C-alpha cells in the first residue's frame, strides 16, 4: 500500500466504498472547515465474484440501540468466548455454535479480508418475485407490435417461478385475469375516477368479506384463491399470456384530429400499486410501465388532449405556466411512497418522440429504485436491448436484480449520519447515530431500496461530532458499518455487511496528511449529487446560489456545464432522465457523465486518451467519445474523405480499414453491456451529428446560453479552459482552509 491511490482502489474493490477523505479530522470544528464533508459513495451489492456467501446468521451486538454485526474490528476474548462491540463497547457472549473458535480458528467475519461478507439467512418461506406489466395501448400500430413482441420475449427471460400480471390502459384501464383455461376475462376501470386502495381491492374481488377479522380486510397473501387470478406463475400462464399479448389491440377510442389520445396513466398505476399492496405487501415486485406518450386524463395528467397546447417546457415552468405540474407531481409522489413502503419498485419505459411526463413521474422510480428508460419508439434497438438487459445475469448465471433492500448504517460515536442520496426512501428509524444536520434523505440511519443492482450506489454524508478539546487516542480509528438486507433474485434472503475504518488525525498538526488522503473523484461525484439533489427539490437559481456560497466558482461552472444542471439545452424530461441515472450509478460511470471520456485513434500508435478539448479534433484522427448516454465516433476531415473515397475496401489499404474498425470494436464492449443502452452516433467533420462532440468540447456555446437564460451568475466565469483536473485541484486546496 505505497500510495493513497492504491489504498483507495483496494478499498473500493473489496468493500465498494470511496470516501471523500481517508483520514478524518478529529474535531468537529476542523471538520466543518472542510468544504467537502466526510462522506462516501457506497455500492451495497458490488459484484464480488470471489466472495462466497456464508450460510449462517450474523452475530449481533446485544445492546438494544446498537445491534451492530460482529466484524474484524471487534476485540475478541477467545478464552472467555466474549466479543466487544467496536461501536458501543458492549461485551457480548458468543452464541453456542461458536464454542470451537480460537485465534487460529477464526470465523470468517472476524478476518480482515472479510471486511465485506455476505450471509444467506432463512426467513420464512421464500417469496416468489412478481412482475406486473402496465401497458399503454395508445400507440401506433408498428410501436404496439414491437412492444408486444418484446413483452412476449420477456416471458422467456423472467425468473422461472416468478409471478406475472398484466394491466393495459388507454382511455380505460383493464386488469387481466390470467386463468389457465377458458375465456380470458378482465376487469375494467374508468380512467378518470380516483379510487382508494381498498376500493380497488374490493372491485377486483381481492377482499373476502366472509373471512374472520375486520370487514373488507384483504385476505392473506398466500391464499391462492386470492392471488390466482391476476398474478400467476409464469411457467403456468406463459402460453396463454403469449396469446393474450399477441391479441392486444390499439386503444379503440378514436382520436380526433388535433387531439392526443386519452391516456389514463395515473389510474393505471394506482390500480397496479393497489393490487400489489393488497396481495403481496413486503415482497419483491416490479411494476413495469410502458408508455408511448404523456398522461392526458384523470389524476396525474401531465397535459391536456389538445395538441395545440404543448407539454410544459422549462420556460413554462419558470413562468409558472405549467398548470398540471404540481398536482401531477404530488399524485405520483404519493403513489411512489406507497409502493416504496411495500417494497415494490416501479420501472418506467417511455418511448415517444415528444416528452411523456418523466418530470412528474420520476419519483416513481427514484424512490423505489426502479429503472427509467427513455427512447424514441418501442421499435428501436435502444429500447429492445435496454429492456432485455433488465434481465441480465452475472457470471454465475444469476439475475443481477435484487429486491426489498434495506440499508442500515452504524458509526462509532465520534461520527453521525447526516443522510443519504440515491434511489432510496427513509425508514425513519431513530437511533444514536443520527445527525441533526440533514443532508439528502436524513433524520434516519435506515433506508429502503426496493430494487437494486450491482451498480446501485448511494452517497452517504457524515458529521464529525467529537468536540474540539476531546482527545482521540493516537492511532484511534473511526468506523462505519453498512448492513444491507435484501432478497436475492433466487428468492434467498441475504445480508451483506461491510465494516470500514479510517484513522483520526489532528487537523492542527497533520493538515498535510489529511490533504493527501483526499479522493478527488469521489468528492466530485459526492458534491455533484448533492447539487443535483438540491436542484431537484428546490428552485433552480437557489441551488446555483448555494453552490456559489459553498464552493468555488470553478466547481459551480463545471457543474453548470453538465447536463444535470444545464437545463436550457434539455427538456424537463431529459433532465429528469439524466439526473435519475446520475444519482444511482457507481463512481466510474458518474464521472463519465460529468466529464466524458475521449479517445483518439490514428496511424501514429495505439488509441490514447485525449483532452476533451477542441484541440483534440484533428483531420487525421478518429475520436471516440463516451458521455455514458451517448457513444460518438467522430471521423476527422481527412479520415472522412478517405472513407468516402472507399480506400478501406482496397486490400493494400487494409491498415486504414483496421483504423476505421478499431473505435467501433472498442465501442462494442460498452454497447453490449451498458445499462441503459446508449445512443450510438457515427459522424464526421461537417456532419450534422458532429454537434454532440462539439458541444462537449467547446464551452463557449454553453457560456452564451448561460447568459441568455437570464440566470444571475454573480461574478463572471473565470475561464473557458476549465477541466476536471483544474477544478479538482482548486477544490482540494480550498477544501481545507484551516488558515482561514
Amino acid at each position: 500500500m505505497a500510495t493513497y491511490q492504491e489504498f483507495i482502489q483496494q478499498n473500493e474493490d473489496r468493500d465498494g466504498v470511496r470516501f471523500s477523505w481517508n483520514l478524518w479530522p478529529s474535531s468537529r470544528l476542523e471538520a466543518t472547515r472542510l468544504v467537502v464533508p466526510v462522506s462516501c459513495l457506497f455500492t451495497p451489492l458490488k459484484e464480488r465474484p470471489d466472495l462466497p456467501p456464508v450460510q449462517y446468521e450474523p452475530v449481533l451486538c446485544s445492546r438494544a440501540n446498537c445491534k451492530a454485526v460482529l466484524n474484524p474490528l471487534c476485540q475478541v476474548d477467545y478464552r472467555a468466548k466474549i466479543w466487544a462491540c467496536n461501536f458501543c463497547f458492549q461485551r457480548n457472549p458468543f452464541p453456542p455454535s461458536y464454542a470451537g473458535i480460537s485465534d487460529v480458528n477464526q470465523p470468517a467475519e472476524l478476518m480482515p479480508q472479510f471486511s465485506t461478507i455476505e450471509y444467506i439467512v432463512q426467513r420464512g418461506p421464500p417469496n416468489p418475485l412478481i412482475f406486473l406489466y402496465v401497458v399503454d395501448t395508445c400507440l401506433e400500430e408498428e410501436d404496439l407490435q414491437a412492444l408486444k413482441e418484446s413483452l412476449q420475449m420477456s416471458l422467456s427471460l423472467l425468473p422461472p417461478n416468478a409471478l406475472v400480471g398484466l394491466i393495459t390502459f388507454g382511455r380505460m384501464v383493464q386488469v387481466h385475469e390470467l386463468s389457465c383455461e377458458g375465456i380470458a376475462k378482465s376487469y375494467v376501470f374508468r380512467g378518470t375516477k380516483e379510487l382508494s386502495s381498498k376500493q380497488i381491492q374490493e372491485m377486483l374481488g381481492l377482499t373476502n368479506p366472509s373471512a374472520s377479522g375486520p370487514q373488507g380486510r384483504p385476505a392473506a397473501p398466500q391464499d391462492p384463491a386470492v392471488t390466482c387470478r391476476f398474478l400467476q406463475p409464469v411457467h403456468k400462464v406463459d402460453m396463454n399470456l403469449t396469446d393474450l399479448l399477441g391479441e392486444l389491440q390499439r386503444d379503440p377510442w378514436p382520436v380526433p384530429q388535433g387531439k392526443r389520445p386519452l391516456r389514463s396513466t395515473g389510474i393505471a398505476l394506482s390500480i397496479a400499486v393497489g393490487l400489489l399492496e393488497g396481495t403481496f405487501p413486503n415482497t419483491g415486485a416490479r411494476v413495469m410501465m410502458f408508455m408511448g406518450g404523456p398522461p392526458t386524463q384523470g389524476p396525474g395528467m401531465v397535459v391536456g388532449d389538445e395538441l395545440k397546447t404543448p407539454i410544459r417546457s422549462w420556460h413554462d415552468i419558470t413562468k409558472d405556466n405549467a398548470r398540471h405540474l404540481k398536482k401531477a407531481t404530488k399524485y405520483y409522489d404519493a403513489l411512489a411512497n406507497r409502493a416504496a413502503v411495500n417494497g415494490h419498485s416501479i420501472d418506467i419505459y417511455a418511448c415517444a418522440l415528444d416528452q411523456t411526463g418523466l418530470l412528474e413521474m420520476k419519483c416513481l422510480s427514484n424512490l423505489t429504485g426502479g429503472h427509467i428508460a427513455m427512447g424514441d419508439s418501442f421499435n428501436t434497438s435502444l429500447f429492445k436491448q435496454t429492456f432485455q438487459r433488465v434481465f441480465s445475469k452475472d457470471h454465475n448465471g444469476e439475475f443481477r436484480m435484487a429486491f426489498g433492500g434495506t440499508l442500515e448504517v452504524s458509526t462509532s460515536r465520534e461520527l453521525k449520519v447526516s443522510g443519504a442520496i440515491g434511489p432510496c426512501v427513509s425508514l425513519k428509524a431513530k437511533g444514536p447515530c443520527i445527525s441533526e444536520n440533514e443532508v439528502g434523505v436524513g433524520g434516519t440511519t435506515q433506508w429502503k431500496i426496493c430494487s437494486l443492482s450491482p451498480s446501485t450506489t448511494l452517497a452517504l454524508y457524515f458529521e464529525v461530532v467529537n468536540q474540539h478539546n476531546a482527545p482521540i487516542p493516537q492511532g484511534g480509528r473511526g468506523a462505519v458499518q453498512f448492513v444491507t438486507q435484501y432478497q436475492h433474485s433466487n428468492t434467498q434472503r441475504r445480508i451483506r455487511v461491510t465494516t470500514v475504518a479510517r484513522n483520526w488525525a489532528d487537523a492542527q498538526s497533520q493538515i498535510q496528511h489529511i490533504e493527501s488522503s483526499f479522493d478527488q473523484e469521489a468528492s466530485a461525484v459526492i458534491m455533484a449529487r448533492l447539487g443535483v439533489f438540491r436542484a431537484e427539490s428546490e428552485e433552480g437559481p437557489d441551488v446555483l446560489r448555494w453552490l456559489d456560497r459553498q464552493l468555488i466558482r470553478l466547481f459551480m461552472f463545471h457543474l453548470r456545464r453538465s447536463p444535470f444542471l444545464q437545463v436550457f439545452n434539455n427538456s424537463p424530461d431529459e433532465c429528469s432522465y439524466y439526473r435519475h441515472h446520475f444519482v444511482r450509478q457507481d463512481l466510474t460511470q458518474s464521472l463519465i457523465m460529468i466529464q466524458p471520456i475521449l479517445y483518439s485513434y490514428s496511424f501514429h500508435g495505439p488509441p490514447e486518451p485525449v483532452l476533451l478539448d477542441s484541440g483534440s479534433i484533428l483531420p487525421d484522427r478518429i475520436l471516440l467519445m463516451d458521455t455514458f448516454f451517448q457513444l460518438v465516433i467522430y471521423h476527422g476531415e481527412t479520415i472522412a474523405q478517405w472513407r468516402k473515397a472507399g480506400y478501406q475496401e482496397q486490400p493494400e489499404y487494409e491498415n486504414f480499414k483496421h483504423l476505421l474498425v478499431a473505435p467501433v470494436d472498442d465501442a462494442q464492449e460498452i454497447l453490449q453491456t451498458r445499462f441503459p443502452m446508449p445512443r450510438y452516433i457515427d459522424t464526421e467533420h461537417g456532419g450534422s451529428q458532429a454537434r454532440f462532440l462539439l458541444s462537449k468540447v467547446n464551452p463557449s456555446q454553453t457560456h452564451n446560453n448561460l447568459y441568455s437564460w437570464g440566470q444571475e451568475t454573480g461574478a463572471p466565469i473565470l475561464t473557458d479552459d476549465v477541466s476536471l483536473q483544474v477544478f479538482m485541484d482548486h477544490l482540494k486546496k480550498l477544501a481545507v482552509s484551516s488558515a482561514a
Partner: protein
Amino acid sequence: VNGNQERGWNDPPQFSYGLQTAAQGAPKRTPLNKRVPPPQLTGSPCPVPGDFPSATAPMTPPTNPLAPPCSMNTPPRPCPVAAPPLGGVMATPPPPFPVVEHTDSASSQSENEPDVDDVVTLLNWALTACRHTVKKQVCNDVAKRLKLFEDMWKSGKLSLPVRRRMIGLVQELKSCNWDAADEIHRALIVDHVNEVGQWMVGVKRLIAETRNLNPDLLHTQEVDQSLDTSSAGNSD
C-alpha cells in the same frame, strides 16, 4: 445489425443474445476509462492522489496527446483525395477483388439443408412422453404451437438461422440437456421474436415439462416408436 434509424435517431446496433450474454459475464477487454491531465496544472505541493485511476489495473502515465502533424497530412483536395498511408505496400493499387461478408456463420456447419421432419419427430417424441402426466389442455396447446412451427417452416417463413438453431435445440432435448435446450430457445426468441414469437412458448413449455418427467417415461415403447418412424405421427 444496425439499429432502426427510421424510428429512432442514433439507434445503437442490435446484438445477438449470445453476444450480450457472453459480454456481460466477461471482464472488459479494453477499458476506456482514462483521462489526460490538462497542460495548465496549478502546481499543488501535495501529491495528487486518485489521479484518474483506471478501474482495473494500475495505469502507465498518459502520453502527450498532441502529436506533431503527420508528414502525410496533405491538405484535403476534393478529388482526387490523398490516399491514406499504405501498410508498407507499393502505391499502385492491385486490381481490386470483392470482399464478400458472410452474415451467416453457420455456413461453416453441415451443408445439408435442415430437414423439418427430423425436428418435428423429436419434438413429438417429447410431447408424447409428456402426455402421460401433463394436463391434456396444456399438451394440446403445445401441439397446436408445434404445428404452427411446422407449417411456418414448410411454407418457407422461417429463416435459415432459426431452422439451424431449432435442429440444435432438439438435439439437446434428445440428449436431455435441458439447460442447453432452454438457452437456445431463449436466444431464438430474443434474436428472432418476429419469426418465432407465436410458437416458441410452446417449445419453452415442452422443455420445461419434459425435464420434470420421470426419466422412464422418456423411453417407453410408444415413445421410441414415434422416434423410429420416419414420418412424424401426431397421435392426437
